[in-house]
């Protein structure tokens, strides 16, 4: 008998169903309400919601607390763990605690350097890297033991994911890095924002070649740009995001007031271009502080829940 999938995300990806995930912007609020409202805007359009881990090295609502609130509201979280703020002791403690409150999907990332955020004077941890973060959590998962060998009463049955960024150098290495993370325990992948379709295609070709046409489930990261100015700012200031000039020019053609709409349209075009490619298991929508745009993107690309399962 094949084991039951550990989460709805795992079930969908294991059965090859096209999957939509989205990132919720964690509010700077001390109330649950602000988070719940944002997550509920996304929930009708996606299968699981990513909760970031103080992304951009800016402190935000705790990822584990946010996951617990989502679970209370019957929304499936994908909780991100970065290497920046936790050493191996904290990681292992948090993973078992998260499992106990019902978290099943854990997404491992390196994390942005503290210099990127609003507390550049902080001490960065980086005791682990994204690969050893995966091996550490996978060790808990498969052996039911801490790294020290101390045993847990059971094995936390988790579904592990990892990030891949095909859009920055060294380009040739990126597919290999994905496979390294797969070997380390990652079952699914989400990419950084895709604005460069050609670059993505060459990455995908290499990945398909290396895996004999059967890569692990890969969700393409997409998101709308608010304006041409914002796109330029993103490219200059957020490490790892590359917005090609032709994409910016397309938005810039419109007057300021209409650029928001043009940004959503550009995103829809990208989703349409990647959604049918062999090796693409779904999309991951990151609409920073702009949850309302997600419904528009999902509907316009024919990826609403009932439609996409038909």
């Amino acid at each position, binding site marked *: 008998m094949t084991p039951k999938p550990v989460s709805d995300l795992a079930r969908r990806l294991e059965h090859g169903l096209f999957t939509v995930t989205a990132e919720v912007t964690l509010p700077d609020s001390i109330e649950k309400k602000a988070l719940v409202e944002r997550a509920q805007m996304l929930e009708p359009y996606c299968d699981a919601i990513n909760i970031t881990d103080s992304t951009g090295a800016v402190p935000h609502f705790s990822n584990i607390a946010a996951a617990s609130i989502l679970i209370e509201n019957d929304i499936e979280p994908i909780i991100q763990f970065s*290497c920046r703020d936790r050493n*191996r002791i904290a990681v292992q403690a948090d993973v078992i605690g998260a499992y106990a409150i019902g978290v099943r999907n854990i997404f491992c*990332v*390196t*994390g*942005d*350097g503290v*210099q*990127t955020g609003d507390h550049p004077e902080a001490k*960065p941890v*980086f*005791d*682990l*890297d*994204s*690969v*050893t973060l995966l*091996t*550490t959590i996978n060790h808990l998962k498969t052996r039911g033991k801490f*790294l020290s060998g101390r045993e847990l009463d059971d094995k936390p049955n988790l579904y592990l994911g990892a*990030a*891949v*960024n095909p859009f*920055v*150098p*060294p380009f*040739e*290495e990126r597919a*290999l*890095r994905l*496979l*390294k993370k797969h*070997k*380390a325990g990652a079952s699914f992948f989400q990419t*950084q924002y895709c604005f460069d379709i050609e670059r993505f295609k060459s990455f995908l070709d290499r990945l398909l070649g290396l895996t004999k046409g059967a890569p692990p489930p890969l969700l393409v990261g997409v998101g709308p740009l608010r304006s041409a100015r914002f796109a330029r700012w993103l490219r200059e200031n957020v*490490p*790892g995001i*590359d917005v090609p000039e032709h994409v910016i020019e397309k938005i810039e053609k419109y007057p300021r007031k209409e650029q928001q709409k043009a940004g959503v349209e550009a995103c829809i075009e990208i989703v349409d271009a990647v959604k049918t490619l062999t090796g693409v298991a779904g999309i991951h929508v990151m609409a920073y502080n702009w949850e309302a745009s997600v419904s528009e993107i999902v509907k316009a690309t024919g990826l609403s829940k009932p439609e996409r399962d038909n």
Partner: protein
Amino acid sequence: MNKIRAFESTYLFCLKILSGIIPVLGNKRPFMWFMVTSEKALKKPLFGCQMCGQCILHSTGMVCPMGCPKTLRNGPCGGVRSNGNCEIKPDMKCVWVRAWDNSTQMAVFSDSIKEIQPQLDHSLSGTSAWINDIGKKNDS
């Protein structure tokens, strides 16, 4: 012969010699001191060695991964700039961009960059990587 190949050959040569010596002298204090001192004296100026005690230079194109501001040992982060420079130090080439380029030039170890490196053991910081490495192989 290029620089990377020369380093690689030197590594192989040292490996051969030290594999004979370390099992005999590896736990003798004066020898330990000699190894730590010479590793510091040679690897610091050549590779910016930080004496992590778990050298993997031959798996990373002879570029020390501890020079990465996030001390990543398993490949580049997602923040590399489009010109190949580091997310955190914009004027420095990303350590892993260099490591990737160099490792393709290696004769024996060009594929080692694909291997998963284990978590760093911080308790070995400041000790001799050669003794740790060969000693460990001997123990197992």
